[in-house]
């Protein structure tokens, strides 16, 4: 008897029980290499924490004592066996299958621990190959779900081909198509060259300033023979690595392409990623033109996707790390069809101190532009807008001003018309609400965008 209200633990294992004639119910396991990799992981941790100290004499690092070596072997052998068993067990325990519109993942080792993931709530699928995985032809599949910090499923590892097939299958099912639908064709949208990427990361005021400071410190250190400058120079160097080298490695070979099942982003030098954002999942966009980039006509595009919350947000919110402004706005038009951001009539704010800020609405979107040197454009589709707020702080009330904000899920985008003449601000808020209503009706339910 099955005491659980769940489907049987392993639909194929009971004799005389025929699996339903649905090809999607096939139960899958992770790639077998997951087991040795996990065992290796445990052994490495053991060696660093315990094994190394058993093996090496703390008094004399170079000498190898036979008695110590024997103890080391006696301890290490059982640990290796246990690690091997854990690896195989952990690999064997994880099973997943597709049941109707849900992805079902069973991670129970001793008893069933089933997690059902409704694919209609899926916000994105990433296929990630870490450096080691790429050498072995492995990849992991990550599903982003709306809501919560634990709303993420990782299947680690799958064979490279299997991962791609699973990605296509999940996206097709989320779209309301049969799971065996072949992968949708894509058309390349843009690619970012290494030189442009490096230049764009370097040509930022804080980066240039800290680099100048670093050079000055090093020159000063060499000239005077003072080693104390290292105490300042090394943290600056680390900061530069974090701000320039890390994004450079991450976004090298960035390519984006448009497919009917969403926008696909591929990038990464060491760890390669294929990020899929299904249509309708992008809530709002921001086009950023940093001051120095504007001389080259470059811009960056960031997105707000519900569910990409917390620390992972900055990792997954880039839609275009750098590109021509035209490409950035074209990307906005791809995400929100029929929207031309530059074509939206913007009204400047009526405050004396924010002459460069402006906001405006078209039939589909609310656009706000901000900044004199570093310019940002925030765009939200009315169909995706959450609530609309009109506020007037005490200072604003003295000046007869108000702020209209369109709330969007947490992310890089903040859409607001700041410091409008308060009566016009109210008009804008009412107009936004009035336009959001038909926009929501037009977009309908986006759960199954192809269904």
């Amino acid at each position, binding site marked *: 008897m099955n005491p659980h209200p769940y489907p049987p633990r392993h639909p194929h294992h009971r004799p005389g029980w025929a699996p339903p004639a649905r090809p999607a119910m096939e139960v899958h396991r992770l790639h077998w290499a997951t087991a040795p990799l996990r065992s290796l992981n445990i052994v490495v941790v053991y060696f660093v924490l315990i094994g190394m100290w058993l093996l090496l004499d703390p008094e004399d690092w170079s000498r190898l004592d036979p008695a110590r070596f024997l103890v080391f072997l006696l301890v290490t052998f059982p640990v290796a066996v246990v690690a091997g068993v854990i690896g195989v067990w952990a690999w064997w325990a994880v099973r997943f299958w597709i049941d109707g519109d849900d992805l079902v993942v069973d991670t129970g080792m001793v008893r069933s621990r089933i997690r059902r993931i409704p694919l209609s709530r899926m916000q994105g699928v990433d296929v990630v190959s870490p450096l080691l995985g790429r050498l072995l032809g492995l990849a992991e599949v990550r599903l982003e779900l709306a*809501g919560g910090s634990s709303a993420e499923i990782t299947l680690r590892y799958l064979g490279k081909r299997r991962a791609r097939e699973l990605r296509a299958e999940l996206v097709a099912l989320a779209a309301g198509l049969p799971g065996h639908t072949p992968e949708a064709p894509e058309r390349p949208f843009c690619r970012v060259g290494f030189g442009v990427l490096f230049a764009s990361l370097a040509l930022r005021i804080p980066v240039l300033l800290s680099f100048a400071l670093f050079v000055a410190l090093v020159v000063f250190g060499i000239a005077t023979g003072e080693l104390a400058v290292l105490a300042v120079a090394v943290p600056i160097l680390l900061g530069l690595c974090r701000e320039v080298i890390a994004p450079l490695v991450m976004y090298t070979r960035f390519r984006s392409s448009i497919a009917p099942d969403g926008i696909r982003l591929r990038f990464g030098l060491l760890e390669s990623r294929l990020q899929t954002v299904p249509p309708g999942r992008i809530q709002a966009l921001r086009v950023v033109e940093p001051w120095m980039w504007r001389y080259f006509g470059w811009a960056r595009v960031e997105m707000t996707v519900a569910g990409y919350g917390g620390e992972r947000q900055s990792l997954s919110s880039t839609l275009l790390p750098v590109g021509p402004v035209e490409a950035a706005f074209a990307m906005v038009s791809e995400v929100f069809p029929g929207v031309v951001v530059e074509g939206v009539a913007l009204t400047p704010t009526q405050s004396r101190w924010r002459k460069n800020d402006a906001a405006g609405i078209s*039939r589909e979107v609310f656009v706000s532009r901000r900044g004199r040197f570093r310019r940002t454009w925030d765009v939200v589709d009315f169909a995706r807008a959450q609530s609309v707020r*009109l*506020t*007037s*702080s005490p200072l604003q009330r003295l000046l007869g001003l108000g702020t209209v904000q369109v709330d969007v*899920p947490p992310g890089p985008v903040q859409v607001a018309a700041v410091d409008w003449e308060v*009566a016009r601000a109210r008009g804008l808020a*009412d107009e936004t609400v009035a336009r959001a209503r038909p926009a929501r009706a037009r977009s309908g339910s986006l759960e199954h965008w192809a269904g």
Partner: protein
Amino acid sequence: MNEQPQILPPQPYRQRTREEAFAPPEGARWWRISPRHKWYRRVVALVVALLAGPLGAFVVARTGGTPGAVVWSAATVLAFVLAWLVAEQAYQAWGFLERGDDLVITSGVFQRRIVIVPYARMQFVDVTSGPLEQLFGLATVRLHTAAATTDAAIPGLPIAVADQLRDRLAARGDEGAGL
């Protein structure tokens, strides 16, 4: 026939004056919260003043001597009197309106505010009632959307009214998709 829903040209809005900027939508009046809410606020202010006044005065007296304690007590009394007076204004400022597609909430004495939450974007509604609120038979209805910045709460509703409002809102939210 065209399958697209008809897009009507936007209705021309009567230009509001500055004073009318936070007025209710055309042809409607705000629904008010319970007048007990201001007494609730005053009792909260009293409790805070009774706790913070003597305690703070004691601490200040230990370090700053008697003049400090006197200043602290005066400040507490002043803050209490202000809170007492503002409670009336704050009560007057609260208003809400259930419309066909959205809920409109207004509030704020110093910082004026209007929030418009479409039912279709509502994720859940909850009703809370703290011990002091329960003493007055009041409850707070709060609407949550996918945006963390949405601050749509209506305090000071009689508990029965709050429950009814929650049920109505929940029923309307079910019709929408949520995201």
